[in-house]
């Protein structure tokens, strides 16, 4: 376990040197800040627009950071050949993958905290720093766990660019996968219905992590629903990381 943590710590150290991270963080803070001006231009509750935009910016830029850093996470180690001296040490390949994953998750968590602090600074200024928004940000962290695991898995067998496209595709499909359930109900039992069912289960149900509209409008979210989303996110991410480890186990490093 200490070996995994050592790799995670080193991954964190490397990731926080990545300019892309700061660029995306800058954009996120810019978008959070600019919600003040946008709220002046649009009709509707000023507070709700600021909250809605802020929460969306945190999720969007969190996901983009997860994709961009996630797809090159392992690729960089292979490309720069730093992996040669890591996996030849008495370190299991699964330990390596897990360490890389945890290191990036730590980076993204810190990033999320920074964005949240920026967001709450603005909310304090606006007098709208409600604690009820925090669960929405908490679920964003779970979304990032899943998206990072997707990026890691795709990058374990393809190039960073393709992996980024795959991950983005899976992310979008995962936002909309609830509609498969609706479609399924309209179909007669048969092959079409089975296909719907299959994709519903295979695609990440990322919409489960989105309670932004509810917290914005102060609509209560059942605790069971949040709990289910947490369990689902952890299990789904764990499964993806496990598959990534398997795919990595037999790989050649040329």
């Amino acid at each position, binding site marked *: 376990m200490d*070996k995994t943590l050592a790799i995670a710590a080193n991954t964190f150290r490397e990731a926080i040197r990545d300019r892309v991270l700061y660029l995306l963080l800058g954009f996120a803070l810019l978008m959070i800040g600019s919600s003040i001006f946008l709220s002046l231009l649009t009709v509707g509750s000023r507070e709700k627009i600021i909250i809605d935009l802020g929460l969306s910016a945190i999720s969007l830029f969190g996901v983009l950071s997860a994709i961009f850093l996630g797809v090159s996470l392992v690729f960089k180690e292979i490309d720069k050949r730093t992996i040669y001296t890591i996996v030849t*040490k008495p370190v299991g390949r699964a330990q390596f993958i897990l360490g890389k994953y945890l290191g990036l998750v730590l980076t993204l968590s810190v990033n999320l905290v920074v964005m949240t602090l920026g967001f709450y600074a603005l909310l304090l200024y606006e007098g709208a720093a409600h604690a009820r928004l925090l669960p929405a940000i908490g679920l964003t962290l779970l979304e990032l766990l899943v998206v990072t695991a997707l990026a890691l898995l795709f990058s374990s067998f393809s190039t960073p660019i393709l992996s980024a496209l795959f991950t983005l595709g899976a992310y979008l499909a995962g936002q909309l996968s609830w509609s498969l359930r609706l479609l399924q109900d309209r179909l007669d039992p048969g092959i079409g219905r089975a296909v719907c069912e299959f994709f519903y289960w295979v695609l990440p149900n990322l919409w489960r992590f989105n309670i932004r509209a509810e917290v914005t409008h102060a609509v209560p979210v059942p605790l069971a629903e949040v709990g289910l989303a947490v369990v689902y996110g952890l299990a789904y991410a764990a499964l993806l990381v496990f598959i990534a480890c398997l795919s990595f186990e037999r790989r050649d490093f040329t």
Partner: protein
Amino acid sequence: MAVLEISGITKSFTSHLSMGRTQVLRGVDLKVEAGEVLGLLGANGAGKTTTLKTAVGLLRPEQGSVRLFGMPITDVRARARMGFLPENPYFYDYLSGREFLDFYARLCGIAPSRRAARVAEMLARVGLEDRADRPLRKFSKGMVQRVGLAQALINEPDLIILDEPMSGLDPIGRREFRDIILELRRNGKAVLFSSHILADAEALCDRVAILRGGKVAACGRLDSMLSDRVRFWEATLSRVDPASLNVPHEKIWQRGEQVVVRLQEAEQVDTLIEEVRRLGGTLRSLVPHRRTLEDLFLGELGYEAPEETKAPAAEKPPIPKSRG
């Protein structure tokens, strides 16, 4: 039991230009015994790196097997007793030498209480103590190579595998690297290293293996491979007219005032001495030319060693061979 036993490994790569695959290793057998230094020699592209990467588990052989301390390479207990320095290594360049080695010590499971001391010891061993806190980004190629050796030795391995360890080092660095390898051997460690530089192998190896055509073309103790036989004798004579010299020789030519005769057989040497005496000349020198590693290397690679070292510009062309 051999420390490392590679038997019959094959490996091919898909080449980008053609649709087919290039077979790089065609059944490589190699055994490293405890406490010996084995040099893996071969021209560029012979497959040395591919062999070593398969040995350390970075590549999976298509056929054949690799046993490290009697265990498969996937066993971390086997890897715990091995150290590896890749060809032209690259490391996390944002870490300082000390941080880098501490990280690797942690990967080897060295207890936190012993880590700092071990890292300091390794830094001293490769002569980097005073530059230990600079980031690797600012290290020269030679310094990276040294810190690379330090990471390979940090777990006090019984087998150290080094891929072209001397490349990119200046003469002082090469000397220090050699000394470290010899010291490892004195301490009973086994070393397997690849090189295309023969002088390194001659200076260090107990045994060499020459890789050619995807196989080990020759393998053995350096002394027995080389002192096999005298390839030819070369005699330098003075005050002798080459035309009147009646010895069955291989070649004869004039070098300044002197005459050089190359003889193939030991019996011809006696005849030559009698002839020189008969003609009233002087035998200046008589040198047996043995097989060198270079002859062996080139010979094993399918070239015939050149018959004669290049003549200096001032030298006269060889005298036509006389019958005799």
